[in-house]
């Protein structure tokens, strides 16, 4: 599958897909999208990169082990839930803060943190499976 065209295009394609996945993640609260679908897009981006250029460049680019990324995602999601308990409301209650930046209000929330956690879990888990399979396919 390592044709010249695929190998040339794959890095651009993958980086665009990762960028797009972040966009999908962030718009998710009001438009179609969200952490799960964003995570799937990013995971396919890494899978494509891996198929085109081999597994080790992907691992280098990711820097962390994908399972560690998934773990950190799960921890973020858990923290997002636990913060509510510290604030004295039931577990997983959404908390919101509005930060004014350049005249606009930036809405941050534990819900966002939770969604980012979902994103990381999906990216990490699926990427680690895909990379492990690709690794064995090529060795």
């Amino acid at each position, binding site marked *: 599958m390592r044709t010249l065209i695929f190998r040339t295009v794959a890095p651009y394609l993958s980086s665009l897909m990762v960028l797009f996945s972040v966009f999908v993640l962030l718009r998710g609260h009001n438009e179609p999208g969200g952490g799960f679908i964003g995570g799937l897009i990013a995971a396919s981006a890494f899978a494509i990169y891996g198929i085109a250029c081999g597994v080790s460049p992907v691992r280098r680019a990711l820097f962390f082990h994908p399972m560690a990324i998934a773990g950190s995602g799960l921890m973020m999601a858990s923290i997002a839930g636990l913060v509510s308990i510290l604030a004295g409301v039931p577990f997983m209650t959404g908390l919101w803060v509005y930060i004014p930046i350049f005249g606009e209000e930036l809405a941050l929330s534990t819900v966002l943190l939770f969604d980012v956690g979902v994103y990381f879990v999906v990216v990490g888990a699926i990427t680690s499976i895909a990379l*492990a399979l690709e690794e064995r396919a090529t060795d």
Partner: protein
Amino acid sequence: MNAYMPSTTFFVLLSPFIAALFAPALTRLFKHNAAWLLAIVPAAIFWHFSTFLPDVANGEVVTGGYQWIPAFRVNFSWLIDGLSLTFALLISGIGALIVLYSGGYLKSHPHLGRFFSFILMFMGSMLGLVTSDSFLMFFVFWELTSITSFLLIGFDHKREASRRAALQALVVTGGGGLFLLAGLLLIWNVTGISEMSLLLRSHTALADSPFYIAIFVLVLGGAFTKSAQFPLHFWLPNAMEAPTPVSAYLHSATMVKAGVYLLMRLNPVLGDTVAWETVLPIFGGTTLIVGTLLAIRQTDMKLMLAYTTVSSLGLLVMLTGFGSEKAVEAAVLYLVAHSMFKGALFMVAGAIDHEAGSRDITKVGGLMASMPIIFAAAFASAFSMAGLPPFFGFLAKEEIYAGLWHVEAWPLLLTLVAIVGNGLMFVIGFAVALKPFLGEKKAPGDHPHDGPVLLWLGPAVLAICSLVTALFSELTHHYISSPMSTAVEGEAVSVHISIIPHIGMPLYLSLVTIAFGVVAYRNVDRLRAAMTRLLDAIGWGPDQGFDQFIRGTVRLSFRVTQVVQPGRLEIYMKATFILLAIAVMVPMIVFDELPAMPKMPEYLSLYETAIMAIAAVGLLSVLYAKDRLTAIVSLGIQGFAVALIFMLFGAPDLSFTQFMVETLSVVILALVMTRLKLTPTDHRSVGKTAIDLIISVVCATAFVLLLLSVTQLPFDASLSDFFTRYSLSIAHGANIVNVILVDFRGTDTWGEIAVVMVAGLAILSLIRIRLRPAVPIATNDPSEEERR
């Protein structure tokens, strides 16, 4: 609830666990002298509980506690009446002495700190058990005593015998705990009561219930396993593998009495029925006789004492079940007496073992001069055990005969059983207390002597207690015996027996017992030989039965595993899909819920038709694909078509996800294909293909029917309305699907991503497994294991 000192009692109940936490550190600092510090905890508990004595003696019942899970009416609550108070005092009082004794007995043991920790944890569990008011708390502490007992029996975990004994005790008492749990839940269901104190006021609610027999059997299942009734007694002698302080504390004075405690506690509500007054004396009486006979056969002092503990527990069960007020008084007195003399005798046996180098009565002798204090304690305790004045055991035995004696067949039989049992216990008591001390001096160890104060303090204090409680019997009865009997009987009882012998039937029966005991003592060697011959002739006991049971269970589970987990993916998938089809189809047919034939849409737009055609083409090419890779990709075509349909019908999120999932499935399936090095083409025989075809068609039909009948139900829009209304206003999000996922049902998603993560880990490890041909895969076959 009475608010009498609630917080102090709570802290007191907690304190042994706190002490257990610090015990290892203290032991590292002070070596075995940490015992003096740690004994302060049980001593303080003893002092705290003794402050309840005056109130409880006046007939008061102290309760207190906190709400634990209010929604289920589960409380952390305690009940202190005569019964629980006596137990609490025995546990903490003897506990303090045992902690001190452990310091002497395990003086230079490398894990002394751990030992202190375990024994304090046990103490806390046992205290919790006897003071629990709520059923759930009672059960939790009941199981905690089993677990801590497991840790203590297996303390010397490098010996196989210890490990086996620990496991055996855990299996038997833990299994009994499950019976107890079922029994308590049944009581809870039948009466709606979850607290002992309320249950005791429910009069005959349980005895009249149609579930009485079930409750009765389940409660006995718990009590008989814990209190080692025949034929479940075998774990108790085996538990003597534990260090002697454990035997003295758990397996004579406290834990094994938990079953008796349960029976006594429930006597007012479960007792007074034919079942209770028949089953309990039969099991108790059998245990009494079997226990003493097996004790005669032993020469190891600890084992002799262990078997007499079994028989004493039998005697207690028998008396509790007999039903008369006097019998209950006798059970109460004997329970207190037994805790004191048996605890002391065990510590004596341990001290002899420690100082003289053996605890076999045929190997040690003539130690009286070198171990005077131990001898005095042993002698006094044996007097109490034999039921001789002026010790507390005498009061108990007089009351036993007073309670049992009636000129009727059943009481006469039980009286006879009691005489034989008591007579044989007389023999054992003196065999342990006299044989090692009298006669020609012999000891495997060098310089036998009384040893350090830590070693002799426990037995000495307990022996003195046996004497003092009997001498001041009026006070003992006022504060201990009468309140406890009242609690067990369920109505006011006052105990009067004193050490001054009264001419009457009980005294004559005592004399008969003593005469029988003396004769038997002189012939103890002959009796032992006879018993050995008898047991050899039988050749099988419950102990072997336990092993056979465990082996059988292991073999059975191996066979079952071989059937249900054959390790072939093909079979797993077939089973899953067949069950799925059955689960969906059968209820629909049985309950006549098959959907009506759907109407064909009148107008189908061109692109809708086109998309469906694409899906159909995708599916057909799956069926006709020459190799697997083509099939996988073709399946993807069908998936994409479905995603398009989602898009057309206004579910962009769903369709979006479907696209990504399809893409990734194709990629990952293709990777797996290359990874697993499967043959590229299908190699199933025609027959197999036909079976698989049938399964898949049935599954597919089932799902079509299910979906059709779901859409034909009237649509309940209340949830969607709720989400539509509140998504933006309270969750600040316009995309309802995402808001549901991350906010309204965030906890669900949280669980799901945890599953994703775990599944990822599992798959990763499966991929990474590299089979090494040199190491054969373990089959876990028990017969292979036994051969090894």
